[in-house]
């Protein structure tokens, strides 16, 4: 067995002059390589239903629920939903449950190779309605508030359009959810049918790897998303709170899940390439999705600095729905900072919470 004595290296490192700059360098090294990852998703929860990889969670079951209408959160098929429960004091779910809301989250889990044939309609028709029924039964409530974030919001809008008359959907809250794909920014070019070999990608990979999708997202702003990330941590190395937030974000950003192949094919083709939803051309298991069927109270949130879902992709929904009570709320934030970070906690959380409370009486 070969053993390497690292003592001289350690001694040399220890003998280096100790000053502030050196300490900063040491800290930087620790933050990047040796510090443990922060613990995410700490709000207490129980599982009330499972199906395949999906789990339906109920948060803080022992807290008193003063709000009559439960909230069901639907997240995207990309990344993990703990962004909604990132860290104590920086968790939207914790904020809501602390104020008496009965919060449920449908976590899609991590798709395996056996799930490569799962389509969007499988999730929208086989999972979401069942989850809604489970929430209603478990809570004993007569109505429900649906909350969708990003692609989860698009799925929520489709589900509501299909089930508005069948299930008691009282409120719909959508957070940076794309509806109109006419101008999806750089993606419109990159996903152009002429260049983007969608079928080859799906057939080769089965499920589309997270790294593949992440590459596209990082390419939207390459310098900032690669070098800028580390410059950011270096320049805030003495600020513990900022470093914690940086670690949390990095953990979440690099902790993605593969996109089920068939669902990815539909997502790119029917939405990015053919823009079917806003034009009333999308069909789910033979039924046409008409956004005008939505009559629930609607809160649609746009983040102006979002480069993943552009404001013009979100806003048209309000003109399509038949809801009498509809609000388009514009915030100065990015795709993720709309729901995490100091500003989100101070401004966006109270706004959404108040809207839900007022519309649940």
């Amino acid at each position: 067995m070969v053993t390497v004595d690292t003592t001289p290296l350690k001694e040399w490192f220890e003998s280096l002059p100790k000053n502030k700059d050196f300490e900063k360098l040491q800290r930087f090294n620790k933050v990047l390589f040796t510090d443990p990852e922060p613990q995410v998703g700490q709000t207490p929860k129980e599982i009330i239903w499972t199906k395949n990889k999906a789990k339906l969670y109920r948060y803080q079951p022992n807290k008193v629920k003063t709000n009559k209408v439960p909230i069901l959160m639907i997240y995207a098929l990309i990344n993990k939903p703990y962004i909604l429960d990132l860290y104590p004091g920086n968790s939207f779910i914790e904020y809501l449950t602390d104020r008496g809301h009965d919060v449920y989250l449908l976590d899609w889990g991590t798709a395996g190779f056996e799930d490569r044939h799962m389509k969007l309609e499988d999730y929208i028709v086989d999972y979401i309605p069942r989850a809604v029924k489970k929430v209603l039964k478990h809570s004993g409530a007569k109505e429900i508030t649906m909350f969708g974030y990003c692609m989860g919001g698009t799925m929520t809008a489709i589900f509501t359009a299909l089930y508005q008359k069948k299930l008691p959907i009282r409120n719909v809250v959508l957070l940076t959810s794309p509806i109109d794909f006419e101008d999806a920014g750089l993606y419109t070019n990159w996903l152009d049918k002429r260049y983007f070999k969608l079928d080859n990608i799906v057939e080769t990979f089965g499920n589309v790897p997270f790294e593949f999708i992440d590459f596209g997202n990082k390419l939207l702003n390459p310098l900032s998303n690669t070098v800028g990330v580390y410059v950011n941590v270096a320049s805030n190395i003495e600020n513990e709170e900022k470093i914690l937030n940086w670690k949390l974000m990095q953990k979440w950003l690099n902790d993605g899940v593969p996109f089920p192949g068939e669902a990815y094919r539909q997502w790119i083709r029917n939405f990015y390439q053919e823009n079917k939803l806003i034009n009333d051309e999308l069909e789910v298991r033979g039924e046409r999705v008409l956004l005008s069927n939505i009559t629930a109270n609607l809160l649609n949130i746009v983040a102006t600095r979002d480069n993943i879902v552009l404001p013009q992709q979100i806003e048209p929904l309000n003109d399509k729905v038949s809801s009498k009570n509809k609000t388009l709320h514009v915030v100065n934030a990015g795709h993720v900072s709309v729901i995490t970070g100091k500003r989100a906690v101070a401004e966006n959380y109270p706004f959404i919470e108040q809207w839900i409370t007022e519309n649940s009486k």
Partner: protein
Amino acid sequence: MTQSTFDVFSLWKEIYNKTESAWHDAIQETLEKKSFAESLGQIQSQYVQFQELVNKMTESYLKQTNIPSRDEIANVASLIIDVDSKIDQLEDEIDEKEERLVKEMDALKKSVSSLEKKLDKVIELLNKSIESIADSNATVAATANKTVSK
């Protein structure tokens, strides 16, 4: 006495900020070009072709060495998922039946209670009729007694 050294981080940040502001527009302009999307598509195609080759080679190696492939393991997982779906359907049916049963029970309770009310009324009416019959019998008997004594 602390020794003053060269601050790498400040220099790094300065270089980054200057580079970022100088290159940002040029990079964005490039990213927006059709030719960039075309090149990206070509790189993607090559990468996918390479991946396909790797997949095929791996599959044939696994076959030769008698090791189950990803497809075969996924097939087993699919069978488990199918069982899971069947249990889910059964649960749905039980839930539906339970709901129906609760509704029927409620309806039954309502009709029983309305029957009870009706019965109460009938009994009340019967009692009243019995009382009135008894009263009239008493009156008849009293009149008969009077007639007899006369």
